[in-house]
């Protein structure tokens, strides 16, 4: 029994039942299927996190984001005064995460590709695009570049889902997608 030492020293020569062998085989094959699924999705799936990332100084990142916002600002949000930025499709866009805001508000076009750069100017933050429910970690000093293709027009929110201090729960941003 499980709490007594084996009586025979050669306990590993005990027989194994067929059912247990089958179960081990099934579980092993299932493991291979699940392992292959991740690789398969990299080849044919459309939702993969990019492996493109750079070291970046927070000030440099902030300067790039501000430059882009100045260049392509189309109007301001009526309530908050945040710049609404409409960059050309295919371009590099820079989204700042900092205590406790996402800056600026981007207006993107449905079905177009954008190279989205994510970085934090201070602590770690969590990019959580709602209600789409895409969740990506944002680090300071790292610039993660991913290509996104907004598939439906509408107004989206960016919630911070990595705890970032006392203002964490007020850290919400906006993202607009137009046709």
């Amino acid at each position, binding site marked *: 029994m499980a709490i007594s030492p084996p009586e025979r020293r050669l*306990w590993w020569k005990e027989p194994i039942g067929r059912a247990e062998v089958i179960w081990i085989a099934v*579980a092993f094959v*299932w493991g291979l299927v699940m392992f292959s699924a*991740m690789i398969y999705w990299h080849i044919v799936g*459309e*939702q*993969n*996190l990019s492996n493109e990332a750079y070291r970046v100084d927070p000030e440099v990142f902030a300067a790039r984001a501000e430059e882009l916002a100045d260049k392509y600002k189309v109007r301001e949000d009526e309530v908050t005064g945040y710049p609404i930025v409409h960059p050309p499709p295919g371009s590099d866009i820079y989204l700042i995460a900092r205590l406790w805001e996402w800056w600026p508000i981007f207006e993107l076009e449905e079905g177009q590709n954008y190279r989205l750069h994510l970085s934090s100017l201070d602590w770690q933050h969590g990019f959580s695009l709602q209600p789409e429910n895409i969740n990506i970690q944002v680090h300071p000093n790292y610039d993660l570049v991913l290509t996104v293709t907004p598939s439906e027009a509408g107004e989206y929110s960016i919630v911070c889902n*990595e705890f970032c201090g006392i203002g964490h729960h007020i850290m919400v*941003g906006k993202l607009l997608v137009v046709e």
Partner: protein
Amino acid sequence: MAKAPTFRTCPDTGLKIHSQAEALIKANAVVAVVYLLVGGLLGLGVALTRWPAVHLLDAETFYAVLTAHGIDVLLFWIIFFEMAILYFASAILLNSRLAAPWLAWVGFAMMLVGSVIVNYAVLQGESSVMFTSYVPMQAAPEFYLGIILFAVGALIGCMVFFATLVVAKEEKTYEGSVPLVTFGAVVAAIIAVFTIASGAIILIPTFLWSVGIISEIDSVVYKIVWWGMGHASQQINVSAHVAVWYLIAAIVLGARPISEKVSRFAFLLYILFLQLASAHHLLAEPGISSEYKVFNTSYALYLAVLGSMIHGMSIPGAVEAAQRAKGFTHGIFQWLRRAPWGNPAFSGMALSLVMFGFLGGISGVILGTEQINLIMHNTLYVPGHFHATVVAGTTLAFMAVTYLVVPLIFRRELIWPGLLKWQPYIFAVGVAGISVFMMGAGTLGVARRHWDITFSDSIFSFDYPPAAFLMMGLNGISAILAALGGVIFILVVVGSILFGKRREEAAAREAPMLTPAAMTYGTAGTWHLPGTYILVGVFFTAFVLYYFINWKFLSEVWPLS
């Protein structure tokens, strides 16, 4: 010079019990239960705050309470209890003295002092950095110092455990290989050493950073190493509670594994692969390659999952075989219907096994799939998953085994047996609710570690779907139920230790808790286990379906690459 060890003979098992080992088991178990009480009540505060209609605590208190809750239950309750298990599985089961008890007491004292310092640092309010304490957010230096002290104390405990194995072998207190339960404890201790080493590698520099000696800690490197501790420490629990499942099945039913060889092999897979999976928490991070993520998150080729799936058949199989041997052979499920469901040690074990497998295991694999993680990372799905593993799995298993520890080690009868019968069910229903409703809310996008999902103070408004609010309310109700189950557990255990009827030697010898058959080695000796095969089939079907449903959910979000 140490005194010669003193022993008593256990009337239930005939094993020699070293008084120092017994005292250490008691001390560690008592402190563990105190932390379960403290951490559990803090958890209730968290759940009642996240219930938007109640919203109990203010934001600052909430984040401090959430930090303390995570550390008190995830580290202190569980690791103190695991120290008790290690001493039990070595000195007691091997019929041996404990090596260097004074050192074990030093370790215990360090763990105790460390844990008190951490709680002081957090509840003072300057260290609300969550269990994970991600840099560059900074806690007070004593926060890191307390965890380091605790970890070193735990490491000393592991060393005493290993030394006891050597002593037992040298002094020939047993023949041949160690028992399966001890084998499981060895696995837990090996993983613990790996875990504590990872913790030291990252927390010592972080402590130096908090006092200004080191200027910067890279946030991604921190996470890679920290999760070597953070995730692997949960794998100590898996190994320990699987060992506890075998222990309870053995003591209560005299159940023998369908094949000891296979069960040992499954534990071996844990040693080789279970410490991987630190990448479960790094799947949405920049700067880490997909190749590494895929390899690590799958424990190589899901080989640790394979180990768990083997135990998932072996343990119900052991129970079925033992029940059939008792004559419950009618139909496919008579053995299950006639199992001792009124014995809280057994029902706790069975519920722990089922909930760990169905809720914790399946959700863990799915959450740890590289791409699917994108629709779950840092949502409430994550705490939903680990409450199923750590609370429904580990905590319930430890509660169940406590019902055997009290009569066997503390030598007291359990009080209020009528109420106690219900405890595992109340706790299990509560925890199942917590897990399922948090996973549900997470699927709807609700962020974890978040004080106010109504965003009432934000400049931009955002509304989660109404179903998410329903989930959070049901989560709160479930938490009340789980807390009730927890309180019953603690009242009964503390009450029994203090006021329970003493278990006299003579009476115990006359009616031992373990039958002589239970004390002899052997495997189940039957492969006729139709009930187990059906249960395993149901589990596998649920696993496969839920796995592919989540790929479907993923395929519906915006393309990204």
